[in-house]
């Protein structure tokens, strides 16, 4: 099955609430939203269709992740494109951006096309590859970004994520170069010298725990520098996973200047704090590190007022042996795709900071715009692609790692009760969460 193949039968979603608004019916046909409201109801009555009772469920546009590690090629023991996208679909995503730090690195047209093709074959959600900025993520010379942009993968976001493009000249050149094909550099903001051997947020707790601190300034200094560089050369900049209150302030300042800067925050930085490091359980070890409660508050406020444009998961699967060890030896990263919407629900919706329309904006509309995905992040309107998610906001569930579709189990939410549940995700009118409709 390929992702372009439409669902055999039209689908009527009965009684759902688009963007959390009033209940209505939606008819999905030929991969698009064919009708809404009374029209959908009456047309459904006339045709042979599949009816889905969506009574009271929130309907959101299919979520778009700007930051996913699918690990394939190279670390198929941690995740594959198939398992990662299946987890994405279960989390409500219809498109994910696959980060470039695979092995081999996605720094050539060949690798990005392979990743895209694997995504199409799996069919759970659209996989948009991200290209590396520098060859092998080495930070030495530019990768062939033009070739990746012109390839079948149509790469528009370039990132050395996992590594910071720390060389100021190289960063300047990258920002300039991508203008030729309307690309954007997504920077992993981490000044390398300030974070050598760093293990956790630098603060009172790192001092007590005897762990090398990761100062906020290491992130903020790069954001400030890159904002100035992007403005200077008239290019676009995207900042990956901002994690500090200072970063939010800098972004607010840069946006206030009218500069073309966007930014993302991860679900875990919206909910978890560095206090968890006191357990020395490496499931809480992540890059950038979990920060203080004050940082969490600032990030939530920044996401609410639009200073931060998007929520991006930084879904980072790791095999058990890379987490079942002492903290310093463990890998950085957490799973995120399947819990993202629930975490945003708890941290942003339950706190009154965002309504469901706001969630759609930060998790679908804006990330699709940043990634320049034409068929994702579209309004729930007639004629639009039928990419959407049905979400039950009324329930809450305990996170069980063993239930994950990911090959890995490194979720920091194990045992926690999170609100809401993705009931179904539709990719071009076809349910991508129903096991039986998807080839194994």
């Amino acid at each position, binding site marked *: 099955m390929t992702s372009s193949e439409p669902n055999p039968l039209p689908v009527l979603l009965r009684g759902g609430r688009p963007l959390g608004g009033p209940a209505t019916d939606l008819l999905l046909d030929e991969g698009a939203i064919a009708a809404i409201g009374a029209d959908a109801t009456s047309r459904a009555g006339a045709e042979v269709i599949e009816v889905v009772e969506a009574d009271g469920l929130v309907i959101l546009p299919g979520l778009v992740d700007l930051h996913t590690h699918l690990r394939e090629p190279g670390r198929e023991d941690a995740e594959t494109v198939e398992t990662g996208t299946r987890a994405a679909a279960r989390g409500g995503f219809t498109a994910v951006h696959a980060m470039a730090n695979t092995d081999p690195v996605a720094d050539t047209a060949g690798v990005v096309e392979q990743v895209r093709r694997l995504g199409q074959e799996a069919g759970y959600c659209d996989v948009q590859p991200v290209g590396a900025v520098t060859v092998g993520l080495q930070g030495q010379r530019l990768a062939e970004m033009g070739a990746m942009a012109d390839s079948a993968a149509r790469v528009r976001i370039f990132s050395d994520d996992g590594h910071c493009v720390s060389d100021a000249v190289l960063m300047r050149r990258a920002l300039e170069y991508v203008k030729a094909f309307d690309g954007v550099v997504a920077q992993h903001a981490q000044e390398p010298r300030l974070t050598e051997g760093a293990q956790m947020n630098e603060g009172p707790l790192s001092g007590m725990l005897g762990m090398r601190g990761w100062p906020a300034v290491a992130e903020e200094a790069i954001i400030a520098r890159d904002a100035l560089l992007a403005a200077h050369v008239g290019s676009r900049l995207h900042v990956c996973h901002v994690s500090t209150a200072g970063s939010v302030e800098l972004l607010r300042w840069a946006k206030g200047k009218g500069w073309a800067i966007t930014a993302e925050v991860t679900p875990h930085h919206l909910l978890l704090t560095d206090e968890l490091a006191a357990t020395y359980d490496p499931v809480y070890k992540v890059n950038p590190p979990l920060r203080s409660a004050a940082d969490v508050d600032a990030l939530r406020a920044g996401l609410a007022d639009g200073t931060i444009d998007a929520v991006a998961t930084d879904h980072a699967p790791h095999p058990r042996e890379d987490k079942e*060890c002492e903290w*310093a030896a463990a890998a950085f990263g957490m799973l995120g795709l399947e819990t993202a919407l629930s975490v945003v629900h708890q941290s942003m919706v339950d706190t009154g900071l965002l309504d469901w329309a706001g969630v759609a904006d930060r998790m679908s509309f804006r990330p699709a715009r940043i990634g320049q995905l034409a068929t994702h992040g579209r309004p729930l309107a007639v004629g639009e692609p039928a990419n959407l998610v049905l979400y039950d906001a009324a329930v809450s569930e305990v996170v069980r790692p063993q239930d994950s579709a990911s090959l890995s189990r490194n979720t920091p939410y194990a045992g926690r009760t999170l609100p809401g549940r993705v009931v179904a995700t539709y990719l071009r009118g076809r349910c991508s969460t129903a096991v039986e409709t998807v080839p194994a």
Partner: protein
Amino acid sequence: MRRHLLSAGDLSREDAVLVLDTAEEMRSLADRPIKKLPALRGRTVVNLFFEDSTRTRISFEAAAKRLSADVINFAAKGSSVSKGESLKDTALTLQAMGADAIVVRHHSSGAPHRLASAQWTHGSVINAGDGTHEHPTQALLDAFTMRRHLGDLEGRRVTIVGDVLHSRVARSNALLLSTLGAEVTLVGPPTLLPVGVASWPVHTSYDLDSSIVKSDAVMMLRVQRERMNESFFPSAREYSRRYGLDTRRMALLPDHTLVLHPGPMNRGMEISADVADSTRSVIVEQVSNGVAVRMAVLYLLLSGSNVPIETPVGES
């Protein structure tokens, strides 16, 4: 007492006093013809050292043997290829061998916590120094040594000098001594005091001379010369001049003030030879007290039933 000893901060004042009182009884054993007690007969204590520390290992080994425990020394250093996984595998191996206690020294902060909390072993875990985190038995022996000379530590002033940032001894001492009511001042160059030290239960100062004149005890921390290359201080000479304890500074100390050092010393760096060998110095005594304190810890953690309790019961 709890089942594990991971951090000096885990000890309540009652716990700490119990360990020190018990150590006092253990110390008298040194004067007896037979320096062995049957309390841990049939128990197995494993010294699991991922990092070389002959002094600490020998001290724990002597302590366990004097209590009649079986001792297994396990030097896990060098298995760096498998990195962290080896901690789990080693723990499972030791569990299979029936270890009742694992004394662990590790280069990674928190490794003993991981060992204790990950359910890989049922034995008691004793932190014998983890990374730049803690070394609780060193703090206990320091407190024990000070108490023998100064009496109750309530209100006593202890100055800890040097590389606090990288010192597990400083962390454990700051926590334990403040639990025991002492007033702790950490002194060092600002580069070697951790960020957030203001939230610790201690005072801090950058000036050694003004701090030591009112101290009842001065503890000099080992400073590695290599820190110079990481720009923590400009040169060994400048460090020594500003933060070293030499004859001139020793003359500023009140008559009763003790000089401690956890060892191994960098003579001429943080402490001059004549200070180290002076009558104020209790550095050699610290070593012998280490065995008594570790006996006390092993006895209290291991001699009873495995039911965790808060305070021991009396006679019956």
